[in-house]
């Protein structure tokens, strides 16, 4: 039986400051926070591997030694490093917190501008397909799209590590995303290591580690950040579809229950050459029942001719008038392509929601002065189906999901702006 493992306390050989070793014998190197010496903890004399300079006042947001609970297990922060990539001469750095549990091993928390990821090395080997324009990594049936390949340089270290860490270490990092998850492949000469990260909000990190105050505000959109619009746009589209079906059912019911009763019919003719006052009023007819639609139809014998009918439906008792007009034109002929026609010799207008009462039509036809006379029939039907409201409602219903989808596409654009594919369309099945 092995004795319980003890936490070790050391003194920096360089400056004498005390150090605590938290990850037992796993630790191969530790950093003296006082003089920034990296010590070989397997060496009996704690040989200094490297001494580095750093910008002033680097303060990990989660202090070394803090314990927190991730996925049901307690982990302790034992190491901290900053790694930097340079894109177009601009350095970007992120923080990596090394977490340790003596039974569960090591995992990482990474932070970039307020975006956090919970990262663990993988037991499975993802399969990478580089045939397409954008490499795709598959892990357990899930596709991850290549986001970025970069050379990451370690620029600051604190605490302890189960490897011999040095400032200036360079690793090639390839990231693939399938929000909220991110696959990362890190290669040094002899070995490639895959890890899987899952996006975490700062609030959840603060809660998991019991940190005081509030987490730093997240800036921009992170590669693995789940889109707040993705699921919701889908949901709203589904709801919209459901409402459209319901709307269609209501429209069908209206159609079925419409009386479509003819209440007036009259035959007239108009000759523009005869001159004089063309306008006249029809005899009175009665509209009955609840307020509902009225259809006025114009059927003409126009042939290669046009006529304009200025119309008004007038309530004989109250004088209320519904003014409208209809232009009817019908042309036909034959040319090198064969017979052709344009327009129709009849038209109709629907006036929604007309109350009951005694009504008549005022009619005023207009034609070219030299045109041949036209004969026409006017019909009035009560309670016909009016579909205008249906199309308006359907259009309104489409507004929220279309808006959501636009937001979603915008979010994905901002995500991929930070990738190696900025400028190209995101086109990877992410913008639903």
């Amino acid at each position, binding site marked *: 039986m092995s004795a319980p493992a003890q936490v070790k306390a050391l003194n920096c050989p360089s400056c004498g400051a005390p150090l605590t070793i938290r990850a037992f014998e796993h630790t191969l190197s530790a950093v003296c926070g006082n003089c920034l010496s990296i010590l070989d903890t397997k060496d009996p004399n704690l040989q200094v591997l490297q001494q580095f300079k750093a910008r002033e006042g680097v303060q990990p947001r989660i202090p070394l030694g803090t314990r927190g609970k991730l996925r049901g297990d307690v982990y302790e922060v034992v190491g901290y490093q900053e790694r930097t990539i340079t894109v177009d001469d601009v350095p970007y750095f992120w923080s990596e917190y090394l977490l340790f549990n*003596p039974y569960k091993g090591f995992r990482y928390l990474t932070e970039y501008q307020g975006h956090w990821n919970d990262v663990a090395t993988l037991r499975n080997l993802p399969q990478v397909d580089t045939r397409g324009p954008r490499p795709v990594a598959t892990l357990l049936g899930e596709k991850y799209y290549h986001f970025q390949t970069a050379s990451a340089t370690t620029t600051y270290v604190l605490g302890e590590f*189960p490897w011999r860490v040095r400032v200036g270490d360079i690793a090639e990092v390839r990231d693939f995303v399938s929000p909220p998850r991110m696959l990362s492949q890190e290669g040094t000469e002899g070995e490639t290591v895959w890890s899987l990260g899952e996006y975490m909000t700062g609030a959840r990190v603060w809660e998991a580690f019991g940190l005081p105050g509030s987490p730093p505000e997240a800036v921009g959109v992170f590669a693995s950040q789940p889109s707040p619009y993705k699921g919701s746009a889908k949901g709203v589209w589904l709801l919209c579809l459901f409402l459209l079906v319901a709307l269609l059912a209501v429209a069908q019911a209206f159609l079925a229950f419409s009386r479509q009763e003819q209440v007036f019919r009259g035959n007239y003719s108009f000759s523009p050459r005869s001159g004089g006052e063309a306008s006249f009023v029809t005899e009175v007819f009665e509209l009955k029942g609840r307020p509902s639609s009225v259809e006025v139809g114009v059927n003409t014998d126009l042939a290669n001719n046009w006529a304009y009918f200025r119309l008004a439906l007038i309530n004989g008792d109250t004088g209320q008038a519904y003014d409208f007009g209809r232009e009817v034109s019908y042309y036909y002929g034959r040319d090198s392509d064969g017979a052709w026609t344009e327009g129709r010799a009849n038209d109709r207008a629907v006036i929604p929601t007309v109350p009951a009462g005694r009504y008549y039509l005022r009619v005023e036809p207009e034609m070219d002065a030299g045109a041949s006379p036209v004969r026409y029939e006017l019909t009035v039907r009560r309670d016909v189906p009016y579909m205008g409201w249906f199309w308006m409602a359907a259009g309104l219903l489409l507004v929220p999901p279309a808006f959501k989808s636009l937001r979603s596409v915008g979010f994905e654009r901002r995500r991929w702006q930070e990738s190696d594919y900025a400028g190209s369309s995101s086109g990877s099945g992410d913008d639903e």
Partner: protein
Amino acid sequence: MSQPTANCPNCGALIQFRWSSAVQTTCGFCRSILVRRDVDLERVGVVADLPPDSSPIQIATEGVYRNRAFLVVGRILYEYEEGGWNEWHVVFNDGASGWLSDAQAEYAVSFLTAQPGLPAADQLRPRRRLVLNGVEYEVTSLTQARYRGVEGELPFAYWDKEAVLFADLRTADARFATIDYSESEPLLFVGEAVAFDELHLKNLRQFEGWS
């Protein structure tokens, strides 16, 4: 399972075997390395001081792998450039033996598997693909390790090694294989990477400040 006993030829202490098929064991008192020759034990060397390590597993740890209970009876400790790892020798209720490796608390269970025609060590390099027993593996690392010591019962005599080359291979579905190039014929161990919780380990080592 019968529990054979013997006396240490060096110090006379009682040696109680946990596994009847053990070929090698160590004396818990005088730290002699003992190899079984028929019914007798031969002292072939002395265990060097094992470097301190922090595996949560120890001799007599119990666990379960694929619904079969196992007991940890021995180990081989290796070191390489970036640390060390343990190959814990585990025996199952039915007498079968296997290996539970623990490298910085990343665990894998594997079994010695006969496989003629393994590639020579100099033919391997990371990312090369290799089909073993009909399964395609990818070489993930080549590790030049140093044999660092043994403890407890092993299925073969293993005590005078020095440098050992290992090739680790993995698959998309967490299968794991190691080729051990320490013998004239390379040895293949096939198994899978496992999560700590899957093994339901009991009788683990204690760590100060952790319960």
